[in-house]
């Protein structure tokens, strides 16, 4: 049996704190090099954690939104609110644990990143109100076609003023 090391945000912070003490006290060039590497790694891990947090918050808001509100609710998290339109209204997004794990890649400049998240997506498409039945369906708070599909969320992120936001979302076929 293999015991895989845990890499939760909590353990990351703990290790970071332990490492931070000797690094802060070091003054040699070799130590400075190590310091730069660790700072870079630390920054990358912080970015990774921030993006995961952003992603989770975005999903939470989608999943808690009422019909038709998802776009408005999630828009503030987008660098460009118009990018909140992902072609279809998202009603529910759940991690697809049966597929590959989430991948977040941060660009070398630390200002851009991309994520790939395998997920199970429930979309809703409004039915046109062009007949009595459709008008009645909307009048009772329904009137949407719901579909549940396996998809890949391809998300581009941008960092500005120290904060990450969503630049673009694509719901791609798996």
């Amino acid at each position: 049996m293999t015991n895989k090391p845990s890499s939760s945000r909590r353990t990351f912070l703990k290790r970071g704190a332990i490492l931070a003490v000797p690094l802060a006290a070091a003054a040699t060039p070799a130590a400075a090099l190590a310091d730069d590497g660790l700072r870079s790694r630390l920054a990358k891990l912080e970015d990774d954690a921030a993006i995961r947090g952003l992603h989770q918050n975005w999903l939470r808001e989608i999943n808690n939104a009422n019909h038709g509100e998802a776009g408005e609710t999630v828009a503030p998290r987008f660098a460009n609110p118009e990018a909140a339109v992902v072609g279809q209204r998202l009603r529910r997004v759940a991690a697809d644990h049966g597929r590959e794990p989430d991948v977040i890649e941060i660009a070398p400049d630390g200002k851009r990143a991309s994520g790939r998240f395998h997920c199970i997506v429930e979309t809703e498409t409004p039915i046109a109100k062009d007949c009595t039945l459709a008008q009645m369906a909307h009048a009772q708070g329904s009137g949407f076609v719901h579909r549940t599909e396996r998809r890949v969320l391809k998300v581009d992120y941008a960092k500005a003023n120290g904060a990450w936001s969503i630049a673009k979302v694509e719901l791609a076929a798996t």
Partner: protein
Amino acid sequence: MSGTPYPKEQMHRIAYTKLTKDQISGKLNAVSAPTSASPLSDVFAGKSIRIVTDNGPTLSYTFNGNNQLSLTEGNSSAVNAGYGALTLDSIAFFTHMIPNTVRGYAVAIDRKTNLATVFDLWFCGYKDNREVQREIYYGYVEQPGQDPPKSRHATTDRMEGKGFYWKQDAGAETLELYPSTSYSNFVELSRFGGELSFCAPSDYVKIDDNHYIYTRTECEFSGTFTAYVLDLNRVEQAGTRLGFNANDDLEYYVFRGNGKWLGQFARFEKLGDERGTEPPPPAPGKPAVKGARRVYRPFETMPKMTRAEVDAVCAKSSTAFEAPSGPARAGGAGAGMAGNLGPNSDWLAGKQLTLRYDTLPAMEYRFEDAETLHYRKDGRGEWIKARYHAYESCPGVFLFGHLLKDEPNHDGHMVVADFDQGLVTVFNGYLNTPYFANEAGVKIHFGVIEMDGLIPPKYRRHELTDEMVGRSITQNYSPGLTSMHVYTTPHSLSWVIFTDTDSGGLEWSGPAGYVKIRDGLYFMYWLEEACNGTLGTILVNLKTMRDVGIGYVCGARGLNMGAIGAHERLVGRLDVMPFYRVRESGRLE
């Protein structure tokens, strides 16, 4: 001669007076208590009770005899009012108004459990003051020294699909069907002659597995509120009716009734789901609205056009079987009522025939291809080109339709041509009807097909039928768009829209007609009167559980004839037909 049982205007055509608050208040204050044809119960006489509700008022009552009470709402001062109470098994039901106000209460208490359901009732809560509003509170009758009960009465879907005939103690007879969890379908047998059924928002509350509370508010009509407790096994009811009738007279009484169980339709919620309808959620950031309920208001929202307006829009745009537009149309969310239509048949292409109707000019046809025909009436005049579509419901039986050109009422023909029998039936749709010019009307004509190699019958025809009456069928037109037809009376049907959890939701009804083409194959129409004005026609095939149809509708964008197609499921049948048979006296049975 005692007169017919029919009203001068059917319910959806009555121009109910927009009563003012002062008028309503005056009429309420002129009545001291609800009347009753049955002896009132003295179950509460001499008693005091305190009803505690969840998120609602605490009501302290002291009852003096069987018709006077004193009420204290919370910490307010006591008021005296007249009341009426009736019992049904262990359940006591009472109602009263509060003098000098436009509000009151109806309360059901189960004396076995001390659980209570309180209907807070008021007028003047909607722009049409006469429409009774209600909020439902669940609670219990406080018992000194005892902890409050943990359970409550609750909304339920357990009543869904049931139907009853009711006869009240004052003589009113109704058929009441509950095919939805938020609406109901009722036929006024004695008040309106039982021609048409009507629909109203309703509440269904479970007391226990044998007893329920039902309400309806006749929104879009008189606004009258009816509530009763019913015993499913004994088929007995006790309740109240509160509202203003077509003469603006106050009807406020308690009633008893006995009835007959008509059967049970299938339900489509997930097995084990017994939830009732939740009130609509408040708008984001807004508090909950007292009395909120979902109400379909088709009369308020329908386009209402004059004859001149109809003529103008028809001249501008009259289309038939336009190609659906948009990428989502093909069987997707935008497919509307044609998502499960199936292919347009080319069987008629190249054929020439005459449809010789008994009561309509003969129609000669030359079918150029699968979408183009030429017709002329009565063998005279020029051949007129028209766009058509045809659908083969079963071998040899086709539904086709087309608009007629230069007709003063913008006629459209929806035709079932039965080449196996040489018979034809047309639903002749037309506009410029008396109430709103864009509302479609329809006439049914029977006849025969004359064409080379086909000898039609001399006397036999397709016939009007009541074989579908009482049945119910679901129609899935396209993803997300499913309705349920309830063939309620020989002259009307209703349609129910399902919720996201497949409960019956909003419901409406209209005049209808049924023609038998052959066993298991029925050609029927419905008119969305006081509701969009559409004429819908479908050819229902019970063997394939599929229907094809043609809609005919005029609105601001012009006149349109379009195709309908649905996959069906059989919901069941209620035994309603015996109540539509006319007795020797001319009265309904």
